Structure formats: structure tokens, C-alpha cells
């Protein structure tokens, strides 16, 4: 098991290195020009000087090496837009995003588990049909639009209905400083919006897996031994279906770090997504480079966790 884990970790390192090449190529190749600000300046030499200052006249490979060298020791430079250090920009943004991602993942996992198990063990029932229709709806709904609609209804309309002076659920982060209730009111709507998609996808996956698993010979054989229904579903059915589901979840969660761009915009959360949009708009290359690396690293780490979880859960993988 340890060698399996060790091997997976070792494989990840070169992946990150190659990812850095891709990131650099993408940002410098297709992305904004780091010296763009100076292009329309009155001083005709300003642009050239800016380029020289930023080292943009050196061969691209040298620039890459230079950047990578600084990157791996944690020198991520400063934002050309705000002037703050990239690490503090991304650090605080990451913290915001991680909170949202965590709660959304936790809520979604719990709900998807319940729905998926129910649907998977009662395929074709009325309840299953309703849940299936809901899942399809959840997968079809555009998150950005849904977010706005939710803000309108659960923020504005609800407030009108209840006649309060504050909306019940905030649509923007409000630093009122206090307690879990405030925290909940602040995060409720964004978590709801993100969860809809996650729950829809995960519950479908689990449903398919459970439906298949409950029809296998070994579940029937366990039933033939007199194993009671609940244990059949949980110990044999879920246990076997979870393996694949958990890895999907891990991968999805890894993608959340970068995947909440729109939700954060709609809810005005100062997270990774907003930082990215600002950096893109301002041609803030240092931030963009680090941002993509962080996002990529998150995916790599979560894929690694997924692989390890799979090995823990499925002895056939572990002992191969």
C-alpha cells in the first residue's frame, strides 16, 4: 500500500512541472501582454522600457526558467494591478473559496448520498422518477442564472414577503462579525447554488452504481444467507458503489477551487474566481501564473487523494 502511495506521489511531481510549462505557455502565449499598460502611453519609449524592466526581451525559455525558479521558492511577485504581493492576494482569496467549496461539498455529499441510495434501491418507483427529474433539472440549469434568480427570490422577494428590513439570506458578504447564524445567512445562497449541480451529478452517479450493485450476484448471495435488507444496502451495496463515487467526488472538489468563478461573481465573494477575472481583465500576469499553478496543484492533490482513497476502498487495486 505504501509503495502504491509513494508511487502515486512521485508521479505527481513531474506532472506539476509539465503543468508549469503549460501554464506559462498559455499565459504568455495566448494571455494578455504584461506590458500592455504602457502601450498607449504618451512617452514612445515607455513601452520598450517597460518590456526591458519586466525582462520581456529575453528568450522565452529563459523567462520561463526565471519564473519557475522564483515560483518554487515561494517568490510569486507582486500584482501589477493592485501592487499587493501575489501570495497575499491569492491567499485570502483561496481561503474564501475553500470555505465555500467545503460547505458546498459537505452538504452535497450528504444529500447526494441519501438521494442516490434511495433512487438506486427503488429504481422505477414514483419517488425515483421525481428525483430523477430533479436531478436532470439540476444538471441543466445554468448556475450563473440560477444564482441571480435565487438572489432575487430568496433575497429580495422573500424580504418583501416577510416585511423585514434585512434580507433573510444575504446576497453579498456582509461582515457583521458575529456568530454561526450570520455565517450561515451569508453562505446559504452561494452554497445552495453550487450544491445544486454537485448533488445532481453525484446522486445520478450513485444511483447508477447502486442500481447495478444491488443486482449483482454477491448481493443476492448475501440475501440468500439471510443478511437483512439494511445491511445489504449499506454494507454490500453502498460499500461497493462508494469506491467509484468517492473518487469522482474528490476530483470534482479539486475542480471547485477554480470552478466557482461565476458563483463568486454573482454573489460578490472575493474568492479565487473574482481574483482571476480581475487579473485577466487587468493583464496581471504574475497573478495569473500563480493562480493557474495553484488551481492545477489543487487538482493534482485531489486526484492523488482520489487514487489513494480508491486503493484504500478496493483491495483489488491495492494488491494488484
Amino acid at each position, binding site marked *: 500500500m505504501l509503495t502504491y502511495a509513494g508511487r502515486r506521489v512521485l508521479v505527481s511531481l513531474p*506532472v506539476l512541472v*509539465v*503543468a508549469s510549462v*503549460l*501554464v506559462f505557455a*498559455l499565459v504568455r502565449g*495566448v*494571455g494578455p501582454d504584461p506590458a500592455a499598460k504602457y502601450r498607449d502611453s504618451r512617452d514612445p519609449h515607455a513601452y520598450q522600457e517597460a518590456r526591458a524592466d519586466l525582462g520581456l526581451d529575453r528568450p522565452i525559455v529563459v523567462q520561463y526558467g526565471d519564473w519557475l525558479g522564483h515560483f518554487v521558492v515561494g517568490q510569486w511577485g507582486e500584482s501589477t494591478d493592485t501592487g499587493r504581493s501575489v501570495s497575499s492576494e491569492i491567499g485570502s482569496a483561496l481561503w474564501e473559496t475553500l470555505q465555500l467549496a467545503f460547505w458546498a461539498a459537505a452538504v452535497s455529499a450528504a444529500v447526494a448520498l441519501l438521494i442516490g441510495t434511495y433512487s438506486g434501491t427503488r*429504481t422505477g418507483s414514483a419517488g425515483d422518477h421525481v428525483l430523477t*427529474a430533479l436531478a*436532470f*433539472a439540476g*444538471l*441543466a*440549469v*445554468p448556475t*450563473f*442564472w440560477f444564482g*441571480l*434568480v435565487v*438572489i*432575487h427570490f430568496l*433575497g*429580495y422577494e422573500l424580504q418583501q414577503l416577510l416585511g423585514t428590513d434585512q434580507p433573510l439570506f444575504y*446576497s453579498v458578504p456582509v461582515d457583521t462579525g458575529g456568530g454561526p447564524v450570520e455565517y450561515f445567512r451569508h453562505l446559504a445562497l452561494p452554497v445552495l447554488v453550487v450544491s445544486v*449541480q454537485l448533488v445532481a*451529478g453525484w446522486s*445520478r*452517479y450513485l444511483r*447508477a*452504481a447502486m*442500481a*447495478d*450493485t444491488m*443486482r*449483482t*450476484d*454477491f448481493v443476492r448471495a448475501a440475501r440468500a444467507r439471510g443478511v437483512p435488507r439494511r445491511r445489504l444496502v449499506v454494507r454490500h451495496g453502498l460499500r461497493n*458503489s462508494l469506491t*467509484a463515487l468517492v473518487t469522482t467526488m474528490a*476530483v*470534482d472538489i479539486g*475542480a*471547485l477551487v*477554480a*470552478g466557482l*468563478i*461565476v458563483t463568486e*461573481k*454573482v454573489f460578490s465573494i472575493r474568492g479565487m474566481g473574482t481574483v*482571476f*477575472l480581475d487579473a*485577466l481583465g487587468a493583464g496581471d500576469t504574475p497573478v*495569473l501564473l500563480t*493562480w*493557474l499553478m495553484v*488551481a*492545477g496543484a489543487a*487538482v*493534482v492533490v485531489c486526484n492523488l487523494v482520489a487514487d489513494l482513497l480508491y486503493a484504500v476502498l478496493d483491495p483489488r487495486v491495492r494488491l494488484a
Partner: protein
Amino acid sequence: MTDAHHRFEPEIAGASPAGSAGLLEESIDAIERARPDLEPASRRRAALHRFLRRPLAVAGLVVLVVLALGAVFAGVLTPYPANPDLTDPAVLAEARQGPSLDHWFGTDTVGADQLTRVLFGLRVSLAIGLGTALLSTVVGVAVGAIGGYYGRWVDSVLMRGTDLALLLPTIAVLLVVADRLGGSIPGMIVVLSLLSWMPVARIVRGEFLTLREQPFVEAARASGATGRHIVARHLLPNVAGTVVVFATLLVGFSILTEALLSFLGAGVEPPAVSLGVLISDAERTAGTSLAYLLYYPGIVLFVLVLAVNFVGDGVRAALDPHRRS
């Protein structure tokens, strides 16, 4: 929005890590399914029957046809232009009107008729959705087939490459690229296909690897068949079903992604109209009386993708009757 591609894989390629359903189940299924009174001889007709027996799929198809017709005839169905002359005071006078008989979806802050704009937006959505699915599928199948059949280092390179590319967050990459290349419909198709072909390639490659080991492929090799013959005659036809199902899902996914990019301002540019742009324009109306500007484009987008997904589910059920769901 998160990466939804692989989320659909289990329902296509088989979710169960525990193995297939028991022998008894299968023989019972076989008996249940063998209904001589209903089963026509031809395979294709049988698949069609299976599709038609699912009410949701049929409903989805009907809705899709209606929407497609609306999109195709967008300029003709309404008396208003998509981008009205903003200097015309008559136009401005119509601004900010809620839904009425003259303007079924109302008008926006500058007086443009929303129904017209939504129909044109539908056109863009459908064109980009279908175009992306087609391009991604063609490229993905080609790459996946080569990697899956010829194996070894070709396959390794391909897989490592797509793994790496999939590492980077889709939306972020797309935004960066769309900034430069996007703007036109063909441009958007190319941009979106850049990342969408990879899951197709993986699926095709995965299936090829499994199929390659099957005795009937060995039999073909034993007959002296060339690689091309085996791929064309034995492998591709057996992945066709899976690919078609994934392609339909890709349509829905591409439509949503395009809308997303347009919402963020990185999608199609005026004078083209996108549903995403409409929603973006209406962003600030949440919490006001103009909120109706928000509903219609979003609902139409939602219904479009829902219909596409139902049709995709129907196609899956039609092509692969062995799956229970």
C-alpha cells in the same frame, strides 16, 4: 460551474465497479425483453422503439424541435430586429415594458424586444452547441482510436497529454483563450472544442483497450486482418453507441459553457446575441421590478439544455437496453 464531463461517464460506460448484474438477473432480463409481439427484426427499428417508449425523451425531442424552429426562423417570427436602432425615439419609447401582447417577453432598458433577442440567442446556442459536439467528437474519436488501438507509447503520450491538459481548470483556460480567439461563432466552436475533445478521446480509448482483448478481435487478427480493418469493422461500431450518447451530453454542456463565457463577457460579440449576454445584461435587475428580463433568457436556456439532456438519455436507453436506469 464545475467540470461536468466525467460525471456523465458512469451512466454511459457503466458505473459499477462491482461487476455486472448477476447471471440470474440477465437471464430474467432476457426473458422479459424477448417479446415477440413487439420486437421488430431490424436492430435500428428496435432502438427507435425503445426511444419512443420513453415519454421524457419524446417530450424533449418535441421541445427541441420547437426551439430549433424558433431559432432558425428567428428573424421572421417577430416584427422586431434583434439590435434595434437606438437613436430611434420610437424604439426608446417602448423601453422597460413588462411582458405584454406586443412584446411577449417584454423590452429591455433600451427598448429592444426580448423575444426576438432570445430567439437569436437560441440560434447562437444551438449552433455552438452542435458545432462543438461535432468537432470534439470527430477529433476525440480519431485520437482515442489511434491511442487505443496502437497502444504502447502512442497511447501513453496521448493519455499523459490529455491528463495534463485536463489538470488546468476548464473555465479559466477557456477565458484566457477566448479573450484572444473568441468572438465569432466558429471561433467559439474551436475554443470550446479545444478541451471537449479530450473526454471523448479517453472514453474511446478506454473502450478500445477493453475491446481489443475480446476473442472476436483476436479472431479477426487470426484471420490476418490489418489494423485498419479491425478498427473500422470491429472496434468503431462497438463504441459508436457510447460516443453518440456522450456527444449528446456534450451538446448540452457546450451550450451551458458558451452561455457562461458570454455571461462573463468572453463569448460572442455584438451584433451576435447570446443567451448568456442577455442574462449578463439583466444581472443588475435582480431585486428590482425589471427582474422579468432575467427570467426569460434563463428559462429558455434551461429548457433547451433540459430537452437536450432528456433526448440524450433517451438515446442512451435506445442504444443500450441492458442498463436499468
